[in-house]
């Protein structure tokens, strides 16, 4: 028996990693890229994604420290729960329950972030436009049951034209869905629709039902977290303009004046709010636009203490003060713990127009709500917890009424004399304040300077109604009278004493006499104690001092006593100046008209420039040379290079030389010109010192090299540290911002104010002098008040040319010269645009209507706005006139500004020939006089059939007839056309939408549309019968055959010979034969004919019957269809009457019934 062995099994080839690389003869390792196509695609994709992330680098001008609050606008159709959302968020952020939302509400939401909530009135297009311009974040509310409504869409489109803020969708009323599945599908549908509107992946929040008048806490918490971490990109327009959302207004007009002159007078109005955007220039008389009111010059701006400071900023202030205290040697340092989350104390809310924080600002009164917000007792005299409370207790103790106080304040604002008497109480107050400061360490340090208050600031004293209405933010203890002054000093405490005394002096150039006297008096008082060192920066802008004197004083060329007398004379100087300035031409070197500047006499110059020592360091070569001379060597360039090499050597082999320094020195530097000198120095130096010296030297040479090479080491260098242009730009911007910051920080507060202006984030009060009374009388806090700064260009008026497109959702095309309300920049105005197109860039041709689906150009008169600014237009803003359609009529962008334009429209003049010669014809009916013809002599004309010609000369006899020549003979039936271009003038019509002046703000009506006027006046739309389209009926024309005379034919060249076949002479085969039918055949034929005739008649009959039947049937069908449609409509109406009435007056009722 043979042993049965297991068959040999070959060892399986293990599929190792190494083997895997070698599959099917392909060595993966041998090729870097295995699938080049795939890799290319991948790379393309990734770079695509990266590129898409890039935006045009833009400087973000919002200050890092203490930025303005983020404007969160809550927008949505009526009844979607906007107020509820704001209430819920406010409740979540500040633990305050609002009963009423009026105007902006500012709350602290984080250590460095504040939010300003505004509710956009749902039924007002104007407010929607304004809100879209200033909102940083939009909470777009929509009813989950209805999805996107007209208002939502309109708002999104408006926002898009004005630089798209961040948009968060919030869906409400989701509790009304009965089944989960429909809820889910509708959520999904909404989400996708939202994505197409905003961007793919935009966040949409879902809020379910309302509990206790609020949305569920968890959902609100999520939303508020989302808001508080949100980042914002700078938007171009807002990055170039200062703007402010007014959260408070006061009428400062003197009541007496209103009494005296009637309430129709223009009002002096103060707007309060946080500044956003760029810094508001502090130049008096700067014009700004108040949306819905108009353009007004600012008469006064004043920075107020922040009513709602962030904890981060407060902490910074505290730190700053602590530092100062340390410097001054005070030991009382109270270290505050840094917290991770907001203290309840820090959760501030500031909403002067709503009743919050106990104070409700009404138009003419202040109501103080003595609520029980904090557990411990409030409003106890002497133990107030903040300024607000103190104010109340003060008011209780004061015997004057608010009205009286108010009056006194008004006087102070108006007359100039009062500034002086206000100085004294102020001093007292601050004295007292200092005394009190003893027990509360911090406050006293915050106001260290008492007497340094400048006159200017005293002037700016705030009146009673400027009391900060928040009761928690200001811990300063103030005495009753303090009320008037406590704003001024906040910014006075940074300026230094000397600067302020100077500023007093500077005031003397102000135009008011009162000032003059005051300042002069002050100066005299100060004179003795001040050693005058003139600051050139101040001197330059003192207009009452002649430039020559400025320089003299600055150089101290004037004697002391002379100077003093000068100052005393300043006042008189000021008055006599006007006469004096005119004769300035004498000093020709003071005039910039003269280009060549002043030089000394030749002799002096020769004397002076014996040697160039004073400017030796200004020449690249010279400095080296002089140094070379110092060392006693011959001065040439080689030597410098020798230095270089030497230096390299030294630094490189520093340690090598450590061992054998002596020999090396000898060997290395024997040929070096520098040798002895170096060696001498080295003798008594340690290693470190030597290294230091070398490093310094190296640095020096590096610098020298850089200087000599110019800018090569700078940004233009292709191998700088930044990979891309984008990064480089970013870095440049960051650097510039850094420079701005450091430079501005170095300035004194006063200088900074002058140079920078009021920066974004500061809470300011802006006073306007002549605001129409309707603004105050018809003030409604629901409608946002927006103040936007204007650049110089925007103050000018002219023709704005832009590219414009009718919005595809707007139902009608737009008509030229039909009024359009344009929202451009901050402004909203009605204007009469002319739509144009260009004929291959040769002329701008007017269009009667906008094209259906493409862009056209539009030119309109209005305030100029720099190119690339987008705008949108609506036809009607009044709610009563809108018919529920989509209101955004057009969107566009400004392309060019001009003062006038040439727009033409085509004008065709038509004439008829009445006498025709060969190529000449007499044309009638085109002109009515010879003069007109003369104007058009030489003009191109054309017949309808396309024969071109030219006008030659007017005929003498029938007036207006002329002779014309053509390229060919024309026919009497031809029509001659002269195409000409007629200039169209743009109507200079600008009608700002002053909606805020109306009592019913949603009902602003401007110039009516053409169609509306026709409808109102019952005028039929004119129609030219010639313009109407009708069927073209052409009579077939028969032409006789071409006959060429024999003689001509004979002379024609062979090629052009007319080849004609001769007529056939022989008969054809068929023609030769005649067919004769036989008897039987004939009969059959006749029979067949009869039969066929009968059958044809039958068919005819059947057909006509069938057609009748068919007609009947169609009629029947149409009837049933109609019945069905009407039934459907009825059903629909019934359904929506029952279920879809969202905007009826009984919203609440219907909703509550729905919920059940």
């Amino acid at each position, binding site marked *: 028996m043979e042993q049965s062995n297991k068959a040999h099994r070959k060892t399986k080839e293990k599929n190792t990693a190494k083997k895997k690389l070698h599959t099917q003869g392909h060595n993966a390792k041998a090729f870097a890229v295995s699938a080049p196509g795939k890799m290319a695609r991948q790379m393309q994709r990734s770079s695509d994604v990266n590129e898409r992330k890039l935006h045009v680098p833009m400087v973000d001008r919002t200050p890092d420290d203490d930025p303005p609050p983020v404007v969160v606008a809550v927008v949505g159709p009526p009844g979607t729960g906007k107020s509820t959302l704001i209430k819920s968020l406010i409740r979540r952020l500040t633990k305050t329950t609002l009963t009423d939302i009026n105007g902006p509400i500012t709350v602290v939401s984080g250590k460095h972030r504040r939010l300003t909530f505004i509710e956009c009135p749902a039924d007002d297009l104007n407010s929607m436009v304004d809100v879209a311009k200033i909102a940083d974040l939009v909470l777009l509310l929509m009813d989950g049951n209805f999805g996107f409504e007209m208002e939502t869409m309109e708002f999104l489109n408006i926002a898009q034209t004005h630089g798209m803020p961040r948009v968060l969708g919030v869906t409400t009323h989701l509790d009304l869905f009965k089944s989960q599945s429909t809820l889910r599908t509708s959520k999904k549908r909404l989400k996708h629709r939202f994505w197409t509107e905003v961007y793919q992946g935009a966040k949409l929040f879902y809020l379910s039902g309302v509990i206790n008048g609020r949305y569920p806490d968890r959902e609100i918490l999520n939303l508020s977290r989302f808001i508080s971490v949100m980042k914002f990109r700078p938007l171009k327009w807002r990055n170039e303009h200062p703007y402010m959302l007014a959260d408070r207004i006061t009428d400062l007009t003197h009541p007496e004046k209103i009494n005296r002159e009637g309430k129709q007078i223009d009002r002096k109005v103060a707007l309060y709010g946080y500044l956003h955007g760029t810094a508001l220039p502090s130049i008096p008389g700067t014009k700004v636009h108040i949306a819905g009111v108009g353009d007004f010059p600012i008469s006064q701006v004043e920075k107020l203490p922040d009513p709602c400071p962030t904890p981060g900023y407060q902490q910074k202030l505290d730190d700053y003060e602590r530092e100062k205290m340390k410097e001054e040697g005070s030991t009382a340092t109270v270290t505050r713990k840094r917290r991770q989350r907001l203290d309840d104390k820090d959760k501030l809310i500031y909403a002067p127009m709503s009743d919050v924080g106990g104070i409700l600002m009404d138009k003419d009164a202040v109501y103080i709500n003595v609520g029980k917000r904090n557990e411990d007792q409030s409003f106890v005299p002497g133990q107030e917890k903040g300024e607000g409370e103190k104010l109340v207790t003060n008011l209780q103790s004061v015997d004057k009424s608010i009205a009286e106080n108010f009056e006194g304040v008004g006087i102070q604002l108006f007359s100039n004399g009062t500034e002086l008497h206000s100085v004294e109480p102020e001093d007292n107050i601050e004295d007292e304040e200092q005394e009190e400061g003893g027990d509360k360490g911090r406050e006293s340090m915050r106001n260290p300077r008492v007497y340094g208050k400048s006159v200017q600031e005293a002037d700016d004293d705030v009146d009673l109604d400027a009391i900060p209405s928040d009761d928690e933010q200001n811990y300063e203890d103030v005495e009753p009278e303090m009320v008037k002054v406590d704003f001024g000093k906040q910014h006075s405490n940074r300026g230094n004493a000397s600067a302020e005394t100077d500023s007093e002096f500077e005031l003397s150039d102000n135009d008011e006499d009162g000032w003059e006297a005051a300042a002069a008096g002050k100066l005299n008082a100060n004179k003795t104690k001040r050693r005058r060192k003139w600051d050139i920066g101040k001197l330059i802008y003192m207009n009452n001092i002649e430039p020559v004197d400025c320089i003299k004083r600055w150089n101290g060329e004037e004697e002391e006593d002379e100077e003093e007398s000068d100052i005393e004379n300043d006042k008189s100087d000021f008055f006599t100046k006007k006469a004096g300035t005119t004769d300035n031409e004498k000093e020709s070197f003071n005039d910039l008209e003269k280009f060549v500047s002043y030089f000394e006499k030749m002799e002096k110059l020769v004397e002076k420039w014996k040697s160039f020592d004073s400017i030796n360091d200004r020449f690249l070569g010279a400095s080296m040379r002089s140094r070379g001379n110092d060392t006693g060597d011959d001065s040439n360039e080689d030597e410098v290079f020798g230095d270089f090499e030497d230096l390299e050597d030294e630094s490189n082999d520093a340690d090598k030389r450590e061992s054998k320094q002596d020999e090396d020195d000898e060997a290395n530097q024997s040929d070096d010109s520098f040798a002895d000198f170096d060696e001498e120095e080295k003798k008594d130096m340690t290693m470190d010192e030597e290294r230091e010296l070398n490093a310094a030297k190296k640095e020096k040479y590096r610098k020298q090299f850089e200087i000599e090479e110019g800018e090569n080491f700078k940004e233009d260098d292709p191998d700088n540290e930044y990979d891309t242009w984008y990064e480089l730009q970013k870095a440049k911007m960051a650097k510039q911002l850094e420079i701005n910051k450091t430079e501005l920080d170095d300035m004194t507060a006063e200088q900074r104010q002058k140079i920078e202006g009021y920066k974004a984030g500061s809470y300011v009060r802006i006073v306007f002098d002549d605001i129409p009374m309707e603004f105050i009388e018809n003030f409604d806090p629901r409608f946002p008040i927006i103040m936007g700064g204007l650049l110089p260009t925007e103050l000018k008026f002219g023709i704005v040319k832009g590219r414009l497109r009718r919005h595809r959702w707007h139902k009608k095309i737009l008509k030229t010269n039909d009024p359009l309300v344009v929202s451009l920049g901050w402004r909203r105005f009605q204007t009469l645009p002319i739509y144009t197109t260009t004929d291959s860039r040769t002329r701008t041709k007017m269009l009667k209507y906008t094209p259906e689906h493409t862009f056209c150009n539009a030119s309109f008169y209005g305030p100029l706005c720099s*190119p690339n600014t987008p705008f949108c237009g609506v036809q009607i803003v009044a709610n009563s006139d809108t018919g529920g359609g989509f209101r955004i009529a057009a969107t566009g962008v400004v392309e060019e500004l001009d003062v006038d334009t040439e727009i033409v429209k085509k004008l065709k003049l038509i004439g008829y020939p009445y006498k025709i010669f060969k190529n000449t014809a007499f044309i009638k009916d085109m002109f009515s006089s010879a003069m007109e013809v003369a104007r058009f002599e030489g003009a191109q004309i054309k017949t309808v059939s396309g024969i071109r010609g030219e006008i030659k000369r007017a005929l003498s006899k029938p007036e207006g007839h002329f002779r014309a020549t053509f390229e060919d003979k024309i026919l009497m039936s031809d029509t001659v056309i002269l195409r000409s271009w007629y200039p169209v003038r743009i109507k200079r019509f600008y009608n700002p939408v002053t909606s805020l002046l109306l009592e019913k703000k949603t009902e602003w009506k401007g110039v009516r549309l053409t169609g509306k006027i026709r409808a109102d006046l019952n005028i039929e739309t004119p129609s030219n019968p010639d313009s109407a389209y009708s069927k073209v009926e052409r009579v077939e024309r028969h032409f006789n055959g071409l006959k060429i005379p024999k003689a001509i034919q004979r002379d024609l060249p062979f090629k052009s010979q007319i080849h004609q076949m001769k007529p056939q002479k022989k008969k054809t085969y068929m023609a030769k034969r005649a067919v004769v039918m036989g008897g039987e055949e004939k009969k059959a034929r006749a029979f067949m004919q009869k039969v066929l005739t009968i059958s044809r008649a039958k068919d005819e009959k059947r057909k006509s019957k069938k057609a009748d039947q068919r007609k009947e049937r169609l009629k029947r069908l149409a009837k049933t269809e109609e019945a069905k449609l009407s039934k459907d409509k009825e059903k629909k109406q019934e359904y929506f009457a029952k279920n879809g009435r969202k905007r009826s007056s009984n919203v609440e009722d219907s909703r509550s019934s729905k919920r059940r």
Partner: protein
Amino acid sequence: MSSNNKKSPYVTFQGSQNFRLRVVLSTLSGKPIKIEKIRSADLNPGLKDYEISFLRLIESVTNGSQIEISYTGTTVIYRPGIIVGGSHTHNCPSSKPVGYFVEPLLYLAPFSKKKFSIVLRGITSSHNDAGVEAIKWGLLPILEKFGVRECALHTLKRGSPPLGGGEVHLVVDTLIAQPITIHELERPMISAIKGVAYSTRVSPSLVNRMIDGAKKVLRNVGCEVNITADVWRGENSGKSPGWGITLIGETKKGWCYFAESIGDSGVIPEDVGEMVAYHLLEEIESSGVIGRTQLPLAITFMVIGKEDIGRLRISKNEIDERFIILLRDIKKIFGTEVLLREINDGSNHDDDYIVTVKGNGFTNANKKIA
């Protein structure tokens, strides 16, 4: 603070000084100005012919500007329009050289709608106004530093006073939205001294003598001195004999200093050369980053820059009456103040100042997009 009085829509100036600058600033800012009492006390009151000519030039390069001149010519109201530019030819009166007209155009040209291409005919050099070389080598580099790269002044014909007959062509092809914000905190080092000595209708030896004179002074200055002789002959050399020299101290950073002068009859060419050389040295000594004559241009461009802070080092000598007048006019029209800050960096120019300017956010709105 004339802008305070709301009654007048104009910024009001008095006197004839800074006439061109005021008109230019007004055009840039768009604010209408009123200049009163122009030589009202003079025997020959009112605007001079060259000033009227200048206003005509401004009118031709702008669109929609309105100029009202009172009957006596002592009051001018100027309502600026839009800077348009384009191609124009301007015949300058014999009382002022072309430099008088080119200089203000340099302020406007980069901010126009179309490219500037202006031919000016007249005298090309004089004692008191900018010569062609001074503009070409002294002012255009300043423009370049502010981002106006493509600008050139071509001398087509030279025309010496009194008869002139010269022709220059100003071409500015760069249209910028706003000038670059500059930071120049160090005095730049002069790398070379260049110069042009020219003559029209006189012997070429005069030119060489001028060069010799200048070189004699600058021999020991320690850097390369390179003066070109530029002798004009034939019909391109104008109607009158004349000669002059312009010296430029060049730096590698692009800044420059210059001095120029022209010769009169009876003056020794060597003396003119020497004088200009001394003037150049004087100018170098008394200037920070830029010379006194370049200062108005630079400061104006800094003021109309981006809303960033720009810095420029000037020397104490540069703060003179003209500087103060300049700053006051700027403040009156733009409302912008500059800050002068002393340097204490321990260098040997301790009395230098840094001019700190925050640009007012001006942008060239005239230019068409796309």
